[in-house]
């Protein structure tokens, strides 16, 4: 609220200064700026964790998500893989009595995106290592360089009665 009043005052005091005459001039053509971005810094991925049957139905937390991601990357690329910076933007846990859905939203540098996708989709985790994971896999649900294009999904659910 305080911001509002402050702004109003600024408008009021400024307008008479810049606009001394009350002319109804033809509206100046507002200037418009266009640009096209093709190479934004990030690529965003919406990932789904696929648990293998019989694994512990525990909701995914950020730390284990990061562990699974690192494990996939190091399996595919070794030490270089673990050096790829990953930002976990959100984790969605949807669990009902029958199904469990763990969705992870991440962003990675755009140049690394294709190797991350390869690493994640070829990975089947767990099994031999001691982390309590059991067998899990990643599925890429959405991928894009602009997050706004991904958040609303594809809308295909509308066709299902």
């Amino acid at each position, binding site marked *: 609220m305080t911001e509002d009043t402050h702004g109003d005052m600024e408008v009021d005091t400024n307008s008479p200064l810049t606009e001394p005459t009350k002319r109804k001039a033809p509206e100046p053509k507002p200037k418009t700026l266009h640009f096209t971005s093709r190479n934004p810094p990030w690529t965003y991925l919406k990932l789904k964790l696929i648990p293998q049957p019989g694994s512990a139905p525990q909701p995914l937390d950020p730390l284990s998500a990061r562990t699974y991601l690192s494990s996939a990357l190091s399996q595919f690329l070794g030490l270089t893989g673990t050096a790829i910076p990953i930002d976990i933007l959100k984790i969605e846990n949807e669990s009902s009595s029958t199904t469990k859905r763990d969705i992870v939203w991440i962003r990675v540098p755009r140049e690394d995106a294709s190797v991350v996708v390869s690493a994640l989709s070829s990975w089947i985790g767990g099994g031999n290592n001691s982390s309590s994971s059991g067998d899990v896999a990643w599925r890429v649900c959405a991928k894009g360089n*602009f997050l706004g294009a991904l958040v609303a999904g594809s809308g295909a659910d509308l066709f299902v009665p």
Partner: protein
Amino acid sequence: MFEEVDDASRREKCFTTIAQLPAFIDPKQIPSKRSPFSTIQNHAFVHSVEVILPKEVYSKIKPSLETKLEKPRYARVFMAPSALLEHDFFNTYIKSGNILMISEGRSGSDNVFTLQDGILRMELGKEIYERTGLTGKPFRSGGRKHAKERFLVELNLRLPSMLHGKKGFERIVWAFANVLTQSMAWLFHDLESNSGLDEGNKPINKVQPQLITCEPQEIDHEQIMTPPFYENGKVLEEMSEGDLQEHSGSLSEWLAMVQMASPRLSGEDDVDPYLSRYAVPDADESQACDLMSLKWHGLIPSRWIMQLFLNMLQSTKVSNLSWFALAVATLGKEAVEGRDGFTVMVLPSGQSSESSEASQVNGEGTNGPGRVTLCWELMGASVTEP
């Protein structure tokens, strides 16, 4: 680190337009060639619309939004394409009326149908296309290059020659009766009468439609770190092109983060940098603010989105300092360089008062100040699951 950018990634684009709104907008004469109005009109099939705004602003404008905006209504039907050409349906909805229809299916792999302004577009696989005997043109599918695998047939059903009994028309009837016989789910919206779906005698009721009214979903976002738009707007004009691109990119990312309700935006988020290093744009000047999202999900026509946008402009202009954003996602996007949707953000008017000569009367609230809008149009992302 790895310069191995894939083909799909290279095709993704974001068209950004920064424009100033006219001081006064006549709802009967929308400046439809100007951004963002042109963008709103160019997206015919939409599955999600979301409005994001400060919560205190929403509580003020909620009553006027509820009374002035009719809820969008549509129907889900299950029918074969031949039902489009049934006499009643064809004459009522296509020849004299105006409807919007879209079928299920993924562009690039399934047969996909859309109907808009009397023009039926069918995207078909090669084998089916050849069997229909209709004329079309090759269509990019994202598969092998130079191999013509998918075709687009466009039929203007409003042409005078498109009548039962005419030769060209009978070919379509034949194709629908013999080749494209499969029933599929469609979404239907009658542009002539939003509420008229209920009337029992309408032709749509013969195909057992499931009538749906879009109810807005209200989502609270508490204590969201919000960048200082007031300052930003002023700064926009002085920025170099590179800075502007970066700034507008991070702003659109922030809006999308609000849409997905990311905990990274919360003022109380203390995530370890090992897990995320996301930072709100202009983090040091950001303030925690309660925001609100209003979300509609369904087949929503662009005309309704325009009404929503005009309504929002109208009802927020009294409080000069409020901003809002409108995010729209398209339905049935094409496989290659398909449009994903767009986001429009209307900045508070305070910053534009110096540059806008027409805003001298904005203290009265009678004349809309020439607010600055940012519009991001996105294309080419790949979304495989709903």
